């Protein structure tokens, strides 16, 4: 019996081997063919290093990759990129009344949803109402709340919407924009928007239609012929998920993908490349070291200042971003492009003696802190390592707690003591009022759980102040107080380096913007 079985086993194994061997010889010809066809320029493949998931909606999706997906599929009324730089999409105009209390949006009449339904003022009103509903947990809710009062959104006629503010707010024009409009006829009656099964098949008004999501692999879009700003020039856009930056860089050089945001350390690989162009652009990001004030270890201001005095900003930034082509030192809570930015704040120049003094006066010795950061983010890895070294020199020992971005974010939102400090960053608006949700007491995005009544009050004043010079003074004071409190140590304004296929044109018209990368992908062409 035994011998027979063994013979059968051998026969099976050998035949499998032969089949496999046969396959391998065929593969080479096929591979050559397929590589030539990859170059077919009707598809734009954008490599991303995160998974946007199969559940996006304009209310709760707030992460970069989710928002990139939203940007391709949906349109906002308008995008606010600065005082004199407003790009209109679903709205034709947005006019403020003389007393700055009502804003009226005139909507385009030629817009259709991807499923053919007409877009009207009802969709706009519905979207803003959903965003305002507390239980939905919408990402933009705080920018629609003015001194605890929500903005009132009303339909005037099918193509006019009126926004009434409870009180004057100078940041309102920016705050009311940048919100993507969702289809009322799809989501009406949905009680749980965040986990709705409808999120898996999004219907928008944007330049591209949702086609397919493949778990861990890609999201595919096809062009929306009926796009109101003109049909996109590239037929298909694919966001391809690539976790390993080395493989992605190689794939980009080879042309398997057409664009990828590279790390500064990889920039030198593309120096002489004819196929790939590097486009570093400022996203207005502020990268910072934040203190978690729900943790007892860092509740004393002296301790936080001691930490700040032992950090070497230049060293941290050069380690993470290689060359000053790719970053600027940050000193304020605002990015340099923001209105009323000032760098006239405490800069905490490296001073280990001062740091030790402060620790002694706080009565703290043998300080041990935990630093939370995103484990798969190369820049944060380096920042964390240099911070650990810097603080060690000042006699503070640091334990590194690395985790995934989503997990870190979820931790930051709750009150916890898992880490005392964390590395993060934000890309917010232009008007300083949009930054209030990060610093105002008990705001859900106040990840430091920071509270200073003076700051709360100043933010409230700044929002309603119509006089430019007075407003400037208010926001400069806010910047100084927050930095002085040392719960927030600004590190860097780093640039995003988009490496893109040199054959692609129209990048200027498409517009490189924070978070979404392209303001209007329909303008890209080969």
């Amino acid at each position, binding site marked *: *019996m*035994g*011998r027979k079985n*063994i013979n059968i*086993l*051998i026969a099976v*194994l*050998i035949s*499998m*081997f032969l089949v*496999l061997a046969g396959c*391998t010889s*065929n*593969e*080479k010809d*096929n*591979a050559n063919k*397929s*590589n030539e*066809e*990859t170059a077919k320029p009707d*598809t734009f*493949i954008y490599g991303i290093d995160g*998974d946007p*998931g*199969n*559940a996006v909606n304009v209310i709760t999706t707030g992460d970069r990759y989710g928002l990139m997906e939203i940007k391709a599929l949906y349109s906002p009324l308008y995008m606010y990129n600065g005082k004199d730089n407003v790009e209109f999409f679903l709205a034709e105009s947005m006019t403020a009344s003389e007393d700055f209390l009502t804003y009226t949006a005139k909507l385009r009449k030629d817009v259709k949803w991807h499923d053919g339904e007409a877009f009207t003022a009802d969709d706009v009103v519905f979207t803003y109402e959903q965003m305002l509903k*507390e*239980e939905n*947990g919408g990402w933009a*809710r705080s920018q629609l709340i003015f001194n605890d009062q929500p903005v009132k959104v009303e339909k005037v006629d099918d193509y006019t919407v009126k926004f009434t503010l409870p009180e004057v707010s100078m940041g309102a024009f920016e705050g009311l924009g940048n919100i993507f409009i969702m289809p009322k006829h799809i989501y009406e009656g949905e009680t749980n928007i*965040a986990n709705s099964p409808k999120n898996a098949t999004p219907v928008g008004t944007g330049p591209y239609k949702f086609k397919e999501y*493949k*778990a*861990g*692999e*890609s999201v595919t879009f096809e062009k929306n012929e009926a796009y109101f700003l003109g049909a996109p020039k590239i037929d*298909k856009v*694919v966001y*391809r*998920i*690539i*976790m*390993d930056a*080395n*493989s*992605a860089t*190689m*794939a980009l050089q*080879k042309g*398997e*993908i057409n664009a990828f945001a590279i790390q500064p350390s990889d920039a030198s690989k593309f120096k002489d490349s004819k196929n790939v162009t590097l486009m570093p652009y400022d996203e207005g990001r502020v990268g910072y070291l934040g203190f978690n004030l729900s943790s007892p270890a860092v509740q004393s201001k002296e301790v936080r200042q001691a930490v700040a005095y032992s950090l070497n900003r230049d060293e941290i930034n050069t380690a993470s971003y290689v060359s000053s082509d790719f970053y600027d030192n940050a000193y304020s809570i605002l990015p340099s492009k923001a209105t009323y930015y000032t760098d006239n704040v405490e800069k905490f120049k490296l001073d280990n003696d001062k740091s030790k003094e402060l620790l002694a006066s706080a009565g703290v010795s043998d300080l041990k802190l935990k630093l939370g950061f995103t*484990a*798969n983010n190369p820049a944060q890895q380096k920042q964390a390592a240099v911070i650990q070294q810097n603080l060690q020199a000042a006699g503070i020992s640091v334990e590194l707690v690395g*985790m*995934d971005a*989503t997990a870190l974010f*979820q931790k930051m*939102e709750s009150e916890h003591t898992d880490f005392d400090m964390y590395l993060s960053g934000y890309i917010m608006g232009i008007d300083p009022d949009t930054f209030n949700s990060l610093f105002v007491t008990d705001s*859900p995005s106040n990840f430091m759980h920071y509270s200073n009544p003076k700051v709360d009050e100043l933010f409230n004043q700044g929002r309603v102040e119509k006089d430019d010079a007075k407003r400037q003074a208010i926001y400069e004071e806010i910047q100084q107080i927050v930095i002085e409190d040392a719960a927030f140590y600004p590190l860097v304004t780093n640039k995003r380096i988009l490496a893109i296929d040199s054959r692609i044109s129209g990048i200027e018209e498409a517009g490189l913007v924070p978070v979404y990368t392209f303001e209007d992908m329909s303008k890209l062409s080969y």
Partner: protein
Amino acid sequence: MLKYIFKRVMQAIPMLIIISIICFGLIQLAPYDAVDAMTTPNMSEKTVELIKARYGLDQPAYMQYFYWIKGILSGEWGYSIVTHESISKDLSVRIPNTIILVLPAYILALVLSIILGLVAGARKGKLADKIIDGLSSLGIAIPSFWMAMVLLFIFGYQLNIFPILGMHTIGKEGSFSDLLSHLVLPTTVLTLSFMPELVRYVRSSTIGQLSEDYVMVQKAYGASSVSILFNHVLRNVLLPVITIVGMSLPMLVTGAVVTETVFGWPGIGTYFIKAIQGFDYPIIMAIMLLSSSLVIIGNLASDILYSIIDPRIKGMGE
């Protein structure tokens, strides 16, 4: 025979239950609460209570354990706390992807290492043995991610023979030849990383067999060394290989973590890594439970197979 199989199956069941209890206990110890993932800070207390009740999270731990087991047995593995996607749905996409990658590599490695191991064992100390044994040592020493990067650079980038990323070329998802060309490099890496230890195993077992009396008897009868090797030694060398095959069953799930990450292969490996980075406990536990159950099932399967092929084993169990 049936009695022996029945007995072994009955022994495996309590092991599986113990493993599930350990996995569940770890979930309970974890600092994350499933509720944290489903609620947002601006939800009211009442909403949170409603959500808890909906998922049975207001029940004591032992009740939750039964819910969990009931879910797993009925194919409902819970939800990722990061993406809110259903885990059983995710696994049903990713496990086949991993099997496509790991199974051919493992079979190839097995076949090649049986041949190379036999040759090396039969020619112990000679040139062929030194080459094969030396290469095996090298293979054990080389980390697979490094090998993957080198192969990618040479064959994927410089020679441009094979694609670099993922399972499919965009737009050719249905093409079998496209899938094959994506398979070559990762399969090669996996084959080369599975092989060295198998070669060593077959080699030493061949050497052991060649010193047995029956080989000497065959030699005395004047049988050629090739016929001794293939008619007699091979058979005895292959028997224990069944054990190895059985024990490598969990590899189908977790055998390609590093390779998948480098090649962007959408399998269990990348899923697992992402879950670990994200503290996505339900996924980690599901995969832990799955792979530890496969260890038990693999052992069970190889014991049963062994008892079929070599009936003397049955006697040892009793």
